[in-house]
């Protein structure tokens, strides 16, 4: 063993391994081979589950055998940005597309990036308007509507 791998990468490999186990369990409840020539619905999910679990496990082991890897790069900002997208998605059905997207953009510009408020407001409003026109007017997509009708 040569070094400690980045915990995040071990976590990522573990996520894949867990998904693999879930697929094995799910496939076990399906018909794997019903006696015909070709495999049934559960066959490939079972194979994929086994392969994914095995490959993830090998990757985790190889991470411990390789050179120590640094958990490079900041994570606070990407997590904040991801949280903003998550809140915007929650807001789509509550506040409507226009308000949810406008607030997400404003938050990212003014709070996360600490840009001047007026410029942030203009950029957020402009981007929301362009997206609204493209998707609602041009492509005819029925975007979620909020209390303000947008």
């Amino acid at each position: 063993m040569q070094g400690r791998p980045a915990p995040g990468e071990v976590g990522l490999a573990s996520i894949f391994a867990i998904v693999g186990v879930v697929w094995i369990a799910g496939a076990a409840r399906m018909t794997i081979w019903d006696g015909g020539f070709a495999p049934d619905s559960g066959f490939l999910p079972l194979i994929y589950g086994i392969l994914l679990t095995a490959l993830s496990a090998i990757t985790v082991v190889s991470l411990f055998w390789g050179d120590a890897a640094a958990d490079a790069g900041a994570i606070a900002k990407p997590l904040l940005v991801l949280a903003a997208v998550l809140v915007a998605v929650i807001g789509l059905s509550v506040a409507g597309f226009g308000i949810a997207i406008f607030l997400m953009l404003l938050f990212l510009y003014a709070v996360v990036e600490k840009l001047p408020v007026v410029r942030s407001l203009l950029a957020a409003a402009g981007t929301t308007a362009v997206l609204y026109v493209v998707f609602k007017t041009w492509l005819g997509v029925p975007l979620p509507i909020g209390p303000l009708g947008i």
Partner: protein
Amino acid sequence: MDPFVDLMQGFAAALTPKYLLVCFVGVLLGQIVGVLPGIGPSAAIALLLPLTYNSDPTAAIIMFAGVYYGAQYGGTLTSVLISVPGESSTVMTTVDGYQMALQGRGGVALGIAAIGSFIAGTLGTLGLMLLAPPLAKAALAFGPPEYFALVVLGLTALAAVGSSVMKGLTTGVAGLLLGTIGIDPQNGIARFDYGQIWLLDGVEFIVLTVALFGVGEVLASCTLGVLRPIVNIGSPFPTREDWRASRMPILRGSIIGFLIGVLPAAGATIASFISYIVEKRCAKDPSRFGRGAIEGVAGPESSNNAASAGAMVPMFALGVPGSGTTAVMLGALIMFGLRPGPEMFVQNSGLVWAVIASMYIGNVLLLIMNLPLAGVFARLLKVPYYWLYPPILALCVAGVYSQDNSIQDCWLLVAFGALGWMMKRYDWPAAPMILGLVLGPLFEENLRRAMDMSHGSGLIFVSRPISSLLLAAALLTLTVPALLAFLRDRRALAQA
């Protein structure tokens, strides 16, 4: 039919105002995403997918192809002017291109890159035109075992390209696994839907692609700092001496790039590395390399553009992507209800030849844009990433929602976006996952049909010559990189 007759018909379509416009928009977008940090051609095509959904497939694929090869031109600009490769395929350009820029010859580096890219792109397209149809014709004899083996080759080849074969294989299998969600088309049984009606249709290709390449890339890049100051460009027109020194590197780069691009998943990055090494070996004075040798720009730049055209050969002829970006394009073709592979040259020959013809036109447009307008595009380098990424995220949400008017797809966007960020952060390739999702149903269908054909015997895959050859090639794509790494480690250990 004669490929030249087909090509003329392709030109007749590609030269109509509509297709000319989408070709121009594609190459312009490609040029821009190649210049901008934190967004590559795969992400750009992913973001365009929802906008082109339900539109004319020919127009969409012309635009996507334009983005793909246009990005190779754009990536050069950042490599030469700020020593930051816009694309992985322009890493080698940075070595001598930036040195040339520091010597006040940045314009010449960009000029020779544009001319080399134009020549290589045109030669590559010519190669695509000549090679793809006979390859597709030969592949028309493929049955289920051969298609099954082709999918295996496509997945293993793409998995083997990244930093770790094991990581590539893991994400490829994860994509296949995601492809099993929803109704089993064979017998109508719901799989892994967990009682959620919206999961019966499975995970949509657009959702996964936009999440991994759009949201994931933004999250990985949103911490980007301020870019380095840009050096002066100067005149973009090479002198007679520059041209004399660049002629052969451009020709060699074109040939190397095309041949490597044709290999499934080898792609433009490897082509540019090999071209640089070849030019250094061919040079009378190799010590000039790394200090601003124009051959070090001309060769790799030509090869990465020729590789883009070469990568289209397996995509159109066999339905196997030649690179990460063509994996996304392959998914787009399937999204439009087309079946990439040998039958495309018969059933959708109008589309294929229009796209090939548009690539000639796109290369001319890029040459015109790049020689006199290099300075204008260089100004894009001054746009800070913090102004760019919020609208990209908003476009991701709107695009994914619009595809099926589904909030649930937006939930998947967030979840897969977080996964994409982690994958990018730890260098786990996303393209095999997309390809797994896209090719999963084809893989399962052909496995079942082949097993039915052979009355349940798995020997059918190794007893048929083409199928066994393809599977052997798949095995080689996995074992050769591992063997090379082992030999490299042993040599390093012996030298230590």
